[in-house]
């Protein structure tokens, strides 16, 4: 088990390095002079001297491989460089926004899991019935509705019916959890719905597959009641592929976060990302991609843990 985790961790390192390398070169090889575009971000009009000085300050006048080495070393020491927009360390900028994004993501995930697992199980064990069809339509809806549209419509509906919107500003989960919940529940519903839809589909398919497995036939041959077959035999086994999807779909959810944070003015990484794109703040963009990748890898590691907890074949190793 420990070895399995270590193994997973070791596998994550090259991926992370790869992402860092890819983003670095993708942004470094941008056409045009990045520094100049940065300096103009505010509509300013820098002189060539200022541009040259800024290049030197950022170390961009050195050979690209030296810069790359620096970047990797910085990554290793937790230094992601400084924002070319505010001049503050990118890590600070990111850490400021990270809690909101994480809270939103986790809340969305919780909502999704809470909705999806029972619905997916129901749809699976009653597949082909009207209940299944209803749940499937619900799931297709989650996949089909664009998050930004759904989020905006939810916000407008809240305004229209209750003249209420989630509170503004930055709230700490630890000092004011209620306010954080108020702030994040609506956006989390918007991102969670899509997530839930994916999970419902997976859970349903897994349940249907599990129902035709030999061990379910064995359980029936034992004369177990259907409820206990579902509870003990079908659901635990169907959870395995679904849990994997929870990790993989996180990447898709981040996409929704980008627009949802925009819609609800949440001060998260997604919004910072879009703003940084508008400001051509490449160093921040680079930092966000790296941090999101780390989160993605971490979440998948957690998922692997959960997987191992459910599946004795991994927990205990083969044979």
């Amino acid at each position, binding site marked *: 088990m420990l070895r399995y985790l270590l193994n997973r961790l070791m596998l994550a390192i090259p991926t992370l390095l*790869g992402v860092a390398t890819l983003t670095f070169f993708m942004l470094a090889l941008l056409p045009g002079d990045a520094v100049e575009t940065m300096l103009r971000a505010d509509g300013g009009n820098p002189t060539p001297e200022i541009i040259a000085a800024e290049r030197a300050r950022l170390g961009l006048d050195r050979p690209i491989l030296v810069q790359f080495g620096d970047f990797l070393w910085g990554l290793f020491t937790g230094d992601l460089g400084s924002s070319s927009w505010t001049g503050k360390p990118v890590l600070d900028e990111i850490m400021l926004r990270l809690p909101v994004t994480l809270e939103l993501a986790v809340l969305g995930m919780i909502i999704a899991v809470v909705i999806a697992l029972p619905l997916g199980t129901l749809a699976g064990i009653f*597949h082909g019935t009207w209940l299944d069809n209803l749940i499937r339509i619900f799931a297709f809806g989650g996949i*089909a509705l664009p998050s930004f549209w759904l989020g905006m419509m939810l916000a407008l509906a809240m305004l229209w019916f209750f003249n209420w919107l989630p509170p503004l500003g930055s709230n700490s989960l630890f000092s004011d959890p209620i306010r954080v919940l108020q702030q994040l529940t609506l956006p989390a519903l918007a991102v969670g719905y899509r997530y839930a839809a994916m999970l419902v589909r997976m859970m349903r398919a897994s349940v249907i597959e599990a129902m035709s497995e030999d061990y379910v036939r064995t359980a029936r041959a034992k004369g177990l009641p259907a409820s206990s077959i579902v509870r003990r035999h079908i659901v635990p086994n169907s959870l395995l592929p679904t849990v994997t999807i929870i990790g993989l779909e996180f990447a898709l959810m981040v996409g929704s976060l*980008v627009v949802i944070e925009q819609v609800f003015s949440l001060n998260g990484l997604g919004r910072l990302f879009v703003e940084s794109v508008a400001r051509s703040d490449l160093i921040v963009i680079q930092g966000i991609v790296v941090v999101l990748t780390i989160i993605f890898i971490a979440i998948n590691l957690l998922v692997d843990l959960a997987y191992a907890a459910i599946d004795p074949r991994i927990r205990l190793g083969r044979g």
Partner: protein
Amino acid sequence: MRNVFPPPSHGPLWANEPKRLPNWVELIRNYPFGVVGLLVLVIIFVASGLAHWIAPYDPLETNYANTLAAPSLQHWLGTDTFGRDLLSRVLYGGRTALFIGVSASIIGSTIGAMLGITSAYIGGWFELILERFLEVLLAIPTMILALVLVATMGRNLVFGIDFNLVLAIALPIVPNMARIARSQTLTIRRQAYVDAARTLGFSSSRIIAWHIAPNIAGPYIVMVTTFVSQAILIEASLSYLGLGVTAPTASWGLMLAGNAFNSALTAPWIVIFPGVAIALVVFSFSMLGDALRDIFDPKASAGR
């Protein structure tokens, strides 16, 4: 819980084979969602393909005297802030969405499938390196990757289509498809007929092209369908953020961008119809994809 495993009927036997329903009725009975999805898609494809002839107005034709008109006989879906006919824009927007969605999906899936098949078949270092690379791409959230790509590559209009946009949407599809193609190939590779082809002295390229690729056609079609809906959503989201299709081209995401939602309460049609159009197309593609998956991979629909 009672009907989880519906018991067989202990009734009289069928004396003769019961009359079988015509094939199309069976199809509708077995895959109601898939059939609905297919029908809707056919209608949408035809309507947006023939937008040039069907659309009542030029989608770019402005009428400053008639902005934000409510749906009426002249303008079935109303008009937008430029007085442009919303129905025409929705139709032409469908053309944009389908073109970008389908082409990005096919480009991404095809490259992905080729990479996946080749790496799984050849194995060794090639597989190892490619797999790492694809894992790297997979680790970057889809939307973020697409955003970085459009932000860095800029625009590259070829015949009015932003080719870079298509690429940016297609690239995140590549590792996903490659992963699926790879696992399929690994399964197929274990099949004796691939061994047989090798012992018959066929070259690797022949085996890949004639013996493996055709057997991946099923999952490939399923995934292309799935990715089309993903691509359409990404296109809409990018356009919504102002980084996708360039105005004034009709695009559903673009129709919702900018100040559109400011009119949501006074002129709701300008946000409802494009949103519904996106949802309907993606909905239909998902339903079709699911049905295709059931048809091509009966294991997933076991017990049907």
